[in-house]
């Protein structure tokens, strides 16, 4: 604020800013509804609302790994975040590196799914999808990539059914839910989850979104909108923004029993890292996870703090454990420009070095 009368300066600056915001709002109105999840794929297995997709291999890239990669995403948001748009797609980048990719879509759970819990998702559905992918690819084992809550499911599955997984990758996955910087855990401590689930049934996605927004209300409810309106001429940026907005708020309801078990046993009682979690009467011992493990976490993750993920190192049974730290946040790890090269390259290299069947096939060839 230099020189002129402060009131005049404020009025002028405000006026200029509002003009820009108005232009931004007009430009945004022209954007429409951009396409999402455009990589070609085919449904190869269905069970209840769960669908397993296989992505069409990249035309010009020979298959480098024989073992398929099954991606297990969270139920909190939709899995098309893995293939948001052609130039922001972890799946496309993996296909370009010769990886055979399968993706589990949990669908939109409704009232009929309210009684489904960890046993259904982490054991039955995930197990059946692994079987289906393996059968489709003609192999005995798969590589499993678990993302966020899907990473927690993958760890549980790998601990209980290790014979079906050749290599395990966890991405922004909570393992220790009681790290001091975990605000979501602090907030959930005093909430009567049993009463919540008994009353709500499935936990509405909109309610979960409200909680996520409340983690950083000034940034998430105000600044990000102001920021996008501030660059009204950049149509690509506006389209990206609209895609992200759709993904963020396209939140399925969370199956009630799964939510009850997840919050009570995993978040409040921290049973996964303590080794006291039981699914279908079987104890989930992460010491049984002896296949190679790659753990990818984001340094500035406000939902799953790095320490929550890094805790895996001290409880996992494998001798082949690798960590990869990404300089970004929980969302940036999928869609940022840096992530587009860093993450798929890291995954492809790590898998290539461990894909025994792939190696065997190449030797045979």
């Amino acid at each position, binding site marked *: 604020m230099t020189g002129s009368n402060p009131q005049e300066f404020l009025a002028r600056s405000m006026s200029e800013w509002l003009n820009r915001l108005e232009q931004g709002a007009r430009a945004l109105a022209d954007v429409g509804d951009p396409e999402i999840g455009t990589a070609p794929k085919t449904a190869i297995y269905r069970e209840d609302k769960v669908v397993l997709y296989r992505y069409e291999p990249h035309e010009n890239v020979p298959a480098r790994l024989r073992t398929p990669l099954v991606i297990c995403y969270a139920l909190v948001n939709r899995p098309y975040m893995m293939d948001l748009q052609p130039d922001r797609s972890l799946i496309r980048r993996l296909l370009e590196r010769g990886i055979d990719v399968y993706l589990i879509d949990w669908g939109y759970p409704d009232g009929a799914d309210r009684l489904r819990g960890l046993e259904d998702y982490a054991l039955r559905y995930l197990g059946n999808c692994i079987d289906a992918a393996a059968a489709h690819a003609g192999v005995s084992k798969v590589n499993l990539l678990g993302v966020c809550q899907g990473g927690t499911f993958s760890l549980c599955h790998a601990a209980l059914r290790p014979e079906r997984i050749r290599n395990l990758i966890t991405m922004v996955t909570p393992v220790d839910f009681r790290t001091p910087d975990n605000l979501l855990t602090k907030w959930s401590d*005093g909430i009567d989850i049993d009463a919540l689930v008994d009353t709500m049934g499935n936990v509405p996605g909109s309610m979960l979104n409200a909680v996520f927004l409340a983690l*950083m*209300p000034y940034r998430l409810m105000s600044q990000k909108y102001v920021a996008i309106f501030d660059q009204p001429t950049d149509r690509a940026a506006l389209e990206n923004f609209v895609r992200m907005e759709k993904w963020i708020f396209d939140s399925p309801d969370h199956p009630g029993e799964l939510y009850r078990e997840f919050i009570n046993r995993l978040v409040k009682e921290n049973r996964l890292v303590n080794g006291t979690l039981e699914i279908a009467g079987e104890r989930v011992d992460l010491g049984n996870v002896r296949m190679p493990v790659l753990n990818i976490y984001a340094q500035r993750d406000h939902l799953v703090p790095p320490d929550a993920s890094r805790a895996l190192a001290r409880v996992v049974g494998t001798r082949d454990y690798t960590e990869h730290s990404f300089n970004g946040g929980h969302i940036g790890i999928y869609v940022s420009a840096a992530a587009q090269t860093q993450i798929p390259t890291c995954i492809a290299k790590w898998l290539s070095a461990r894909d025994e069947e792939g190696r065997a096939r190449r030797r045979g060839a």
Partner: protein
Amino acid sequence: MRRYSNGLNLAVQHRPTGPLAMGQGQETNENWAQAWIDEQREKLKQAQAGGAGSQEGAAGTESGNPDLSLLMQQLGDDWRKLYERFVRAGLPSKGVPLGWGREYEQAWRDLLAAQAEYRKLEAEVLAKMMAVHTDALDRLERLIKTRSQENRPLANMRELYDLWVECGEQAYAGMAHSEGYCRLQAELANAAVRVRAKQQAILEQLLRQFDLPTRSELNSVHRELRALREQLAQLKGDATAAATARRASVAKAARRSAAKDAGKKAQEKAKKKGRRS
């Protein structure tokens, strides 16, 4: 007769504050009580006459019955007013609801209490948020003063806004991580759940009255369906295991039989060989 109208209301409004002594005001009481009885008789007559009138006016009704709704309306007017006074007096208190509608009334009382509790906690959270906004402005003010002292003036409104966001997040984080806020927010969430539970209870009562399906019923159906699916999976698993065992048993028997046959053949071959030699 009109001069005695609303006799019951008058009685309610001017009810004696203490017990009457034997004989005191007895005659007066008999008078107004008789007046009230007369009034009710009059209303009955009017209702019957009105009912008959409405029957005449209503096309196609030949039953000749009086209009019961009108009758009840007229008869019930005094009682309704009394009941309303009673409810108004009783609702804020913790007195036990009585009578035919007690469950219904209890459900509404529970809802009102839950709503009141929710509003109280909501106001507390809002007060905390106001404190955060105030703190954010204080922080912003200090920051701008510092920048001014360092000769780093703000370039425009957007920069001021971004700084305000930064200060807001800092102020909010301080509160959001505090034990008191975490507890308050959890209490608010629990209170919201209680409000919803009470609303559901009332809604379920209404749905049952209309013989419409309720969430509780659907939950029962889902539970039964789930149990059936588990049983089916168990039976399938048993059947698969039995079939596998049967196949294994058949294969074993076949192997035995084949071994036996091979043994016999070998013996016969040996015999033939012996005879030849």
